């Protein structure tokens, strides 16, 4: 058996060693050549990995364009990207790392609500402005004000009017709702659908539930098919929604699928999972990759040409705008580069974001509300030819 005294000494020594290693002094700005660092929080694994990849591309593209145009007041913009691996624990050290070691002026990301909750709350505590290009769960910024922002408008605010109009336009009378019960966002979507159906006089003839990710949906669809509704509201993540669509069609369900803005923003995953079964799905939307806004349109066209993508994804455009918002504020307030007086610079950026009214960028018009969420355009989209397209006739 061990003699305890020695053990305690070894343990203490090991801990002291960590303290020295981990506690290295922050680097400060690099010598010479002014740099503005902006942090990016991505996640290379987990359910939102694809969205994060898109987001990083958008942020990098924004920085490339900025620097090609001479940077900000002659100083370069530089991204510092950290990967949270979809692991909240690592976010708890990565955000302080960006704040202290890398001296970033602001942080962009993560796109998912769960990641944003931790990253934004941590950044807020350290008084670093943070903009999520996508987190849309209600209350996601509850603990992150005043430094936390999201470019997405929560479903309830964004989708209600659009979906109500769509239901009236198409004359639906009966509906079923399928809900992912293990997920707060989708439960909120289900409540939203219930409210919308009540308001529009649609009768809800069947409700089914599932738990994220691991079900065959055969049982739920069997129940719904028995009720034969006009419309099936998908309160589900995009992958699950796609599988529900396939199971529904394989059981010969004829209902039209209905989704909130969240379904459209995860549109490619939905269509990839659901294939042909998703054709005709109607969803609310807050972003149009082919917007006719005079500011957005040229930005989108240039991005299409530069990246070779036919449709610029939502998270790409949002991240592009987030970087540019920060850059605009740095320029406007004439903040010093290289992390000089960084605390003050961060506070000014935060105040600037909170005061931002009708910022127009690649993703159309954005205004931040009191709670840090964005007010966004309200659009209707429909799946056609394997992708969501904005139904311009409907808005």
């Amino acid at each position, binding site marked *: 058996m*061990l003699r305890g005294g020695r053990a*305690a000494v070894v343990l203490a020594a*090991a801990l002291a060693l*960590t303290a020295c*290693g981990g*506690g290295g002094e*922050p680097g400060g700005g690099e010598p010479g050549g002014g740099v503005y660092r902006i942090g990016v929080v991505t996640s290379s694994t987990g359910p939102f990995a694809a969205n994060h990849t898109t987001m990083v591309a958008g942020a990098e593209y924004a920085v490339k364009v900025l620097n090609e145009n001479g940077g900000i007041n002659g100083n370069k913009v530089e991204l510092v990207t950290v990967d949270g691996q979809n692991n909240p624990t690592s976010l708890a050290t990565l955000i302080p790392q960006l704040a202290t070691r890398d001296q970033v002026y602001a942080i962009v990301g993560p796109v998912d609500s769960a990641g944003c909750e931790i990253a934004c709350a941590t950044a807020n505590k350290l008084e670093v402005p943070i903009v999520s290009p996508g987190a849309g769960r209600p209350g996601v910024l509850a603990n992150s004000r005043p430094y936390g922002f999201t470019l997405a408008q929560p479903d309830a605010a964004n989708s209600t009017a659009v979906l109500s109009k769509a239901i009236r336009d198409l004359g639906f009378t009966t509906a079923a709702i399928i809900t992912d019960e293990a997920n*707060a966002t989708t439960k909120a979507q289900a409540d939203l659908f219930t409210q919308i159906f009540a308001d529009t006089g649609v009768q809800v003839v069947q409700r089914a539930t599932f738990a994220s990710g691991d079900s065959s949906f055969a049982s739920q669809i069997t129940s719904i098919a028995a009720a034969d509704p006009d419309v099936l509201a998908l309160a589900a993540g995009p992958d699950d929604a796609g599988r529900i669509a396939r199971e529904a069609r394989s059981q010969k369900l004829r209902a039209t699928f209905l989704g909130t803005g969240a379904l459209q923003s995860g549109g490619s995953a939905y269509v990839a999972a659901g294939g042909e079964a998703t054709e005709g799905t109607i969803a609310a939307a807050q972003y149009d990759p082919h917007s006719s806004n005079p500011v957005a349109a040229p930005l989108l066209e240039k991005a299409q040409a530069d990246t070779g993508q036919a449709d610029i994804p939502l998270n790409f455009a949002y991240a592009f705008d987030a970087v540019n918002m920060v850059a605009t504020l740095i320029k406007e307030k004439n903040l010093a580069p290289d992390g000089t007086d960084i605390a003050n610079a961060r506070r000014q950026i935060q105040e600037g974001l909170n005061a931002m009214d009708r910022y127009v960028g690649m993703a159309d018009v954005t205004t931040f509300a009191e709670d840090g969420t964005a007010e966004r355009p309200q659009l209707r989209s429909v799946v056609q030819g394997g992708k969501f397209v904005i139904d311009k006739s409907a808005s």
Partner: protein
Amino acid sequence: MSPYAEAVLLQVGINVLLALGYWIAVSTGKYSFGHAAFMAIGAYAASMLTLNFAWPLPVAMLVAAVVAAVAGAVIGWMALRLSLLYLAIITFIFGQLVELLFAQWDYVGGATGMIGMTGTTLTLVYSSIAVVVVYLVLLTRSRLGLAYAAIREDERAATASGLRITRIAVGAFAASAAVTGVAGALAAHQLMIITPSLFGPQQALLIILYCVLGGVQYFWGAAVGAIVLSVLPIWFEWLNDWYMIVYGLLFVVLMIVRPQGLIGRSERSGGGPLLRRLRRDGAVAVEREREPVG
């Protein structure tokens, strides 16, 4: 100290606490595959108290320890009567059950979890470690610690010495759960947010790896393992990309080369695979002779 250094030290400290807690169970030879569940129980119990009832964190930590210990005792009592395979299965399932229950309990925010806990300080984390270390030093020198070792070494011999194995192992399991629960409470109040999926199978595996890498023989080996594994990905950022693969392979290699961990006396050489196979056959045969008793 910079917030970064502080965040690193907090994280390392919490991981050390997790490793030490797990070691208590392992010192009786009982491996749990769902220890993250006790972390979750501690985290939620403490968070409920600090958020909804404004209790001070240190008191909430104590309650977290007690609640986790009770859960540990119940699960231990169910599982430790049975063979090690059952223990593995039951703790594995228990981990899932706890995650599921928290995800469906609206009072604690369901799948979104709880948000807004603060108050974990270096003092709190490192004084918790100090308390646990003192406990472990005393334990390893005591007859109780000796009994743990006896159960780990040979249960049949231990019954012949009159050791009430299940009772002792359940006690160790409860103590282990208590420490893990405290670590959970501290983690919750450092992260500011907890969701059920935070305490999933990956976290459970990490806890095991912290403990097993350093060595299960001495408790400070477990602590060193936790420190190394928490600091490596921070120092070597490339490791982040390969983190899962590296950790997975670490398990595989470690179990072949040094199943007892890096620190500790080496076992006598086990002979070739054939010899081991024969011995295993013998062990199986002995196992089958056992009859239910009692």
